[in-house]
């Protein structure tokens, strides 16, 4: 599982640098949902904003960044995952 997280993080970072947004954004969201407590995804989302964002003019505008949205997604997914059981 640890290797999977590391590989996922590396693949996501490379896709942020080289691939279109309609590939890496859904992949990032999927990784946050599927992998348990994928906190690396929040940092990768902030990396997207740091690389490509138009600039943060004030502290309030940080709430309209991909980093904030991914943190919210993680906060929603973690308790939901805890309540789900998979009988794989």
């Amino acid at each position: 599982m640890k290797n999977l997280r590391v590989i996922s993080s590396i693949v996501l970072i490379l896709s942020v640098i080289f691939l279109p947004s309609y590939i890496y954004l859904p992949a990032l969201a999927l990784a946050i949902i599927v992998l348990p407590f994928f906190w690396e995804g929040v940092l990768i989302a902030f990396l997207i904003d740091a690389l490509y964002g138009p600039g943060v003019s004030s502290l309030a505008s940080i709430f309209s960044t991909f980093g904030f949205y991914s943190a919210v997604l993680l906060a929603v997914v973690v308790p939901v995952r805890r309540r789900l059981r998979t009988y794989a």
Partner: protein
Amino acid sequence: MNYLQRNRPRSPIVKLSLVLLGLFAAGTILLFFLSGPVISLVSPLWRSETWVGTRVSGFLEIFRTKNSLISENARLSERLAALEIELAAKAPGLGENESVAALLGRRQEEGGVAASVLARPPQIPYDTFIIDAGSRDTVAAGERVFMSEGPLLGTIADAFASSAKVRLLSTSGEKTAAVLERHGIPVTLEGAGGGNFRVTVPRETEVSVGDRILSADIAGRLVAVVGDVAMEPTDSFKQVLAVSPANIFNIRFVLIRP
């Protein structure tokens, strides 16, 4: 004896909140202070991607016969589109503008710093470009960015040592003063993302698809072209939807001027 049980401490929620706060703080630091170094770190990768892509496509051309005609067709279509944009960017009364500028003692601007675009939408989910000219090439934040054919694209948001971030005028929420060319009516262009703009004008204003929207300064650069006009019979205003003359998804070179 005390039969009342203590509530279980809500440690998982507190723990999760603390971790998320820590992540948020780390991300904020990354965003505010490390944006420049991160872009400087990644720029060589984008440059090498462009270099490798050019070499590979050139090599593969040897093995293509029918496909070479298709690529030639695409290249000529692109050239035709660029010439059409250049023609559209030249205002009909260009001679009149030049004489007004001369009367006011203002020189028409020429030249500028040329730069290639390293990253653009759809790779970038925002309406921004990363270009390969920076402060070493006398590029500074706030300078204007144009297409090589003439239309105004945006401004430099951040300038780093050898690269810069361009904020397009079509960035969502960005407001730009402009002029509707048809009757010289001042309007406010509001960016809607994806190279699109939104303008609200009074109902009586005459505006048609294809009308040009120019910048509000003396140069009167082409900024957008009206794509659609929407109005309900009961509305007091018209919603004008305009598009950038540039295809921001495959633009390759830009000009930067103060």
